């Protein structure tokens, strides 16, 4: 009995331990039209602290659903979901979420948007100069007093990332964060995200439908099937860091991985035609 308590009690994880444990998780819901939708089917995935995992899959495969489950925004039907050994039962302070299209509040300055997590949800830790440092590090130092509509799409998403980092969470969940940006801005932000990750080693789960983005950023690329979402492959990316877009395309592993992921996704598309 005592052993059990020790086993299930929340604990600090060792570096090689598992931070995010997804165990046979399924998600079924009834749509507005009354149809039963199997969004996820028995997904299992373990993510270690400090790992950068990208999830790719066809549109509507449930990859965003998976992220919402981890963020505690939706409930799951079956299985077990553990963050740092604790069962997910709602939004956690250990998690920062980066939404599609920045999702900044237009009536607040960039500084207020980024500092929002420190002003809501109880337990207000003193921010110190944390917000200013985050703004400076992401190149937004001079834009704290601007309003979101005065910023370009790329800058807005930088602010979105800053906001997710405001509480210094262990885990960053990113839902197609750069999907709405042009290709060049996207590459710049990929580079910057890599740098931020290398500097503070958050555990990142990033959803994308860009194969090149996934391979560029990830330690592991997880490929999901069309609905009901299953995991088709979990591919290690052995390309050394820091990576650049110029170098990575020349790396033999890049071509191999891109081909493999594309093959898996194409098989999905054709299976559904």
């Amino acid at each position, binding site marked *: 009995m005592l052993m059990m308590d020790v086993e299930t009690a929340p604990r600090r994880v060792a570096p090689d331990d598992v931070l995010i444990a997804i165990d046979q998780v399924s998600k079924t819901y009834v749509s507005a039209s009354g149809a039963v939708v199997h969004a996820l089917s028995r997904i299992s995935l373990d993510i270690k602290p400090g790992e950068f995992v990208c999830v790719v899959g066809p549109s509507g495969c449930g990859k965003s659903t998976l992220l919402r489950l981890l963020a505690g925004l939706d409930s799951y039907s079956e299985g077990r979901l553990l963050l740092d050994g604790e069962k997910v039962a709602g939004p956690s302070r250990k998690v920062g979420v980066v939404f599609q299209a920045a999702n900044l509040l237009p009536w607040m300055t960039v500084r207020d948007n980024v500092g929002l997590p420190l002003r809501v949800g109880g337990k207000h830790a003193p921010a110190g100069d944390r917000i200013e440092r985050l703004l400076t590090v992401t190149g937004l130092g001079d834009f704290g007093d601007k309003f979101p509509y*005065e910023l370009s799409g790329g*800058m807005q998403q930088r602010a979105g990332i800053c906001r997710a980092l405001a509480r210094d969470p262990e885990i960053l969940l990113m839902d197609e964060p750069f999907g709405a940006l042009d290709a060049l801005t996207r590459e710049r932000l990929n580079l910057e995200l890599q740098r931020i990750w290398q500097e503070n080693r958050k555990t990142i789960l990033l959803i994308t439908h860009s194969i090149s983005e996934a391979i560029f950023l990830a330690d592991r690329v997880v490929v999901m099937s069309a609905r009901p979402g299953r995991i088709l492959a979990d591919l290690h990316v052995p390309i050394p860091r820091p990576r650049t877009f110029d170098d990575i395309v020349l790396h033999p592993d890049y071509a191999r991985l891109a081909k493999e992921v594309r093959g898996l996704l194409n098989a999905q598309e054709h299976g559904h035609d």
Partner: protein
Amino acid sequence: MTDLANIAVSAMSQTPTKPRRRVSLGSPIAWIGLAVLILSWIAAVNLLNIPSYILPKPEAVVRALWSGLAVSPASPLGYYLPLWSTLSNAAAGCAIGVGLGLVIGSLMAEVEAIERLVMPYAFALQSLPKVAIAPLIVIWFGFGDGSKIAISALLSFFPVLINSFTGLRAVEPERIDLMRSLSASRFETYRIVKLPNAAPFIFAGLDMAVVYALLGAIVAEFLGAQRGMGVVITQAQAVSDVAGVFAALVILGVLGIVLHGIVRWCEAKVVHWGANRKK
């Protein structure tokens, strides 16, 4: 770091700075329309020989206006005392109606049980011509300021109720997700996300409410009062002083435009993110 700053600056320079919304004095076309209206009025009374008890001459209206305006503010013959009486009653009623509309609209938007409880009655009352209730309110509140305030409050309540309810419900689900992901309390979500989001809706309701409040006060004064612009109109009507009626209507018209302008000005100050909010 320097190339980061460069990216930031280049990204910034690509962003067009959108002009802020301004309160304008109306388009030139509106002013031309006014000029045409007054000219055809002058032409009509002079060429068609319309009797002055039906349509007074513009100069008679101007004279009536002048005699009402060019007096001491304390003069019983001027517009200032009745205008103050009507305005203060309308303002008090408007404040009550807007306050109640905002509170009940918020409760309806936040608590589904309250929505189900209040909504049917709100719609039933909304479709009732509320001016028809005015005689009843005069019975309840008497001929003093009370009935004026009550009718103004009743008329200004509904547009704010419906608009704040609609606006608070019209919030983007992603913004609610954001607040949920931060474990924000219900009141934090209301204050930080829903209320600013509903502000343009609420101001549209407020715009209607100020005009309705004025309407309510005047209608109440028609039913019986010692002072107010409604009394000025009925007294002029009693002695067939049509120019006097016209002059009072001009005052009320200008007042309506000024009130509308004030609401729009406040909206531009508060909802400063303006047309870019859908981004």
